[in-house]
């Protein structure tokens, strides 16, 4: 994604030409920090993986849907801080309220699922399978509920970015143009 500078002059020779952000748009002028852009670009997938790990590990170690969702949310926060208004939700193409609703739906459906199998509301089923190379893997049905919590928390954080982050930024820009 390199772009050749149109006029290589002494004014722009030290300006970074690399676009580190996925959206391809960086903050303009004084607000831009290349270091943060680079860090966000590198760290973002790693943090997401960590959040998924926390979601699954929660059953036996520290973590769980709530913590995992918060960690994933913070990854998006990092991207927003680096890229600003144009970068939020350029990966997740779902609107935050939809995510929140989706999480709630997943959680409540998982609550009612055991009823179909003659169990009680919110009952947990445990299933252990042996996978080659990995050894024994324990599957617990309550992970579905935790996933619902995870998705909902991500939605809440994205909603926060949308309103307090981008929203206020848009306000500031509007005020600068004398529309406020």
């Amino acid at each position: 994604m390199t772009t050749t500078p149109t006029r290589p002059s002494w004014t722009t020779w030290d300006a970074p030409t690399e676009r580190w952000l996925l959206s391809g748009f960086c903050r303009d002028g004084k607000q831009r920090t290349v270091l943060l852009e680079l860090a966000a670009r590198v760290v973002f997938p790693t943090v997401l993986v960590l959040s998924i790990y926390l979601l699954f590990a929660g059953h036996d170690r520290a973590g769980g849907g709530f913590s995992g969702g918060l960690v994933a949310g913070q990854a998006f926060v990092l991207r927003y801080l680096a890229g600003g208004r144009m970068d939020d939700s350029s990966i997740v193409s779902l609107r935050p309220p939809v995510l929140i609703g989706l999480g709630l739906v997943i959680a409540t459906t998982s609550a009612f699922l055991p009823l179909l199998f003659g169990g009680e509301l919110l009952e947990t089923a445990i299933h252990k399978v042996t996978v080659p190379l990995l050894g024994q893997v324990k599957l617990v049905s309550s992970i579905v509920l935790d996933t619902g919590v995870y998705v909902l928390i991500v939605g809440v954080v994205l909603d926060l970015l949308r309103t307090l982050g981008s929203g206020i930024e848009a306000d500031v820009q509007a005020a600068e143009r004398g529309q406020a």
Partner: protein
Amino acid sequence: MPLLAFVVVHLLVALALPFLARRSTRAAFFTAAVPPAAALLWVLAHAGPVLSGQTVSETVEWAPLIGLELAFRLDALALLMTILVSGLGAVVLVYSDAYFSRGGGDARRSAPLLLAFAGAMLGLVLADDLITVYVFWELTTVCSFLLVGQAGVSRESRRSALQALMITSMGGLVMLLGFVVLGESAGTYRISELIEHPPTGGTTGLAAVLILVGAFTKSAQVPFHNWLPAAMVAPTPISAYLHAASMVKAGVFLVARLAPVFPNLPEWWLPTIVFGLVTMLVGGWRALHEHDLKKLLAYGTVSQLGFLMVLFGAGTHTGAMAGAAMLLAHGMFKATLFLVVGIVDHQAGTRDIRELSGLGRSMPWLAGVAVLGVASMAGLPPMLGFIGKEAAFSAFLTGARPDLLVDAVLVLGSMLTVAYSLRMLWGAFADKPELPQTTVKPATAGALVPTALPALAGVVLGVGYPVADVLASSYAEFFTPVVPYHLALWHGFTLPLLLSAVAVAGGVALHLGRVRLTAARDRLPRPLDAQRGYELIMAQLERVAVGVTGRLQVGSLPTYLGIILLTLLVVPGSALLLRLTVPDDLRGYDNLLQVPLAIVVVVAAAAVLRARRRLTAVLLVGLVGYGIGGLFIVDGAPDLALAQFLVETLTLVAFVFVLRRLPARFTQSGTAKVWQAPKAVIAGAAGILVAVAAVIFSGARQNPPESSAAFIANAEQGAGATNVVNAIIVDFRAFDTVGEISVLAIAATGMASLILASRHERRKRSTRVPSITVKTTTGLVEQPVKQHEEVRE
């Protein structure tokens, strides 16, 4: 389960009707008429056994744990009311098809609502349980609100609908209180059991008064009568149903239903008779001066409802007979007359008696039907209304002096009734020499037939009075002592006949002198006006509400926090001071790491107070949070610590976002300086209280709690988790988790709405700037996908 099934079918069909009404309102109205018609036929088929004393009853467990059940019972009174509710319901629905414009919004709305109304009313008259009664009672209130308000386009319809809702639902709440008092003191909520063993004791009188408030508001008795004429903004078929069979009849029905429960109880019969008589006179008097035919009929209804209240409230055998006959008669003639007025209004375009003239010649059939209805209303033989009135006059001819007074007032009220009946007939159909002939389109058969049916029923029941007699007698059996009285057209030359004659003669005289009467009334001072009183009360209520809200919600965060903390100090704080026991094994620290962490937290908290910049303060508060997270780790709670760190970080970010729009430094106004000392005292005291409480509470626990032990024991087996915290969250207490995330979703959505709402207007106004980097219409509510494509170009 036929009774419950009928009610449920009514409501289910009503739910499905909107979809049908969208296609064809005609089909909707005729479909809607089917359930009431079916209910009517079924009830008539069972009339024989029911009247001979074999009641049909059924119960459905609703919430057995708290003893709630839906109980239904078909007895004589329920039979009588079902004939009205279902019969007139079907009639009105068929008529509505001719009245409403096809496919109009009113028609689409009214068909399902009227049917739901009929269903709720059916449930009410069949109910045999006080709570069941209340449920259906309020359902009718809601339905009437929607029917009177219609689309809520005009301000008047909104106001009238709201007034009906306010008055009747307030009364309904008072009535519920009465039901609870009655049910708890008698030990049963089943009406049939209450009738068998009437409760005694001090609370019964209180219950009676409370229940009467509900009945009076619903049945538009003075001083609550004003909502009924106001509700005349509704389309005429709806008014017809409201007046003849439903809503306002509910109050009278309740008095009739519960009269055997309160035999000879002065708290019961005294208010009903007094208020009933006053209402009868007030309604009749007001009806004499109305120019709007619908309002005239509405005041007539108010007057007749007062009459019915007197008859049912008296609690005598003959009174009950008369009441049952009059209830039936009133339903029939009032439905007819309203439907007649509806046709007049529809065909002539006005219902003002100062504009109508000569309709009798252009609409002879309609005039004939109207004469039948009016004759029954005025109590002329051979109508059912006449039979009922005869019985009513007889009921109070016992020779006791108060009874004679009641009779005198009833005769006076009947005079007024005759007078306004004549006024209605004259106003709608007479030739008025000073007015031009009103041009009308002839009425359609689809409107005329349903209008004529109730009128003919009144004639049939009058001529075939033994049928009415059986109906009334089997209801009146509840009242002792049984006086051998039978409804009949001819009792011989008796005093009631003379009274009827006097009433008719007086009414005719009043009608002939109507011009002078109205002039005289205009000269009278009017100190009391219920409508104005209601408006005054509502205005006062709003003023008080504004005042209270203004005083309590001052909009200052320190004030709110101060009040909350003061409450905390006073209520649990005082208890803590009284029971202060210091645990004897108090240690400085458990782990050496706690000391530096505690110092960090304390220092950061103290530094917040000295901070001049908002950002500094926020960072310091964050530091407090992180310090506490560290303490969690030291205490061996990694889950808690992880969540604490993450939430703290997110809070910091959110704070920083908001700070962009706030001034960098704290601003201090002069008044804030004055409050600094009290604020410091409250904050310090609250902090100390919480710290001391934490130490004492944790010291009070000697052993690990049993619930935790159970969780720990079951985590591996039951939830397949070795992390107990998580096992609790997603398994043992998963229900709480689902509840909490729902709260979180609602809170997040609410917050987002609040923030975005303030910008919504501006976003609509602002123009789009083509360049992407300074786009005004933010991508907040656009599809990010689209943005994505723009970006990739």
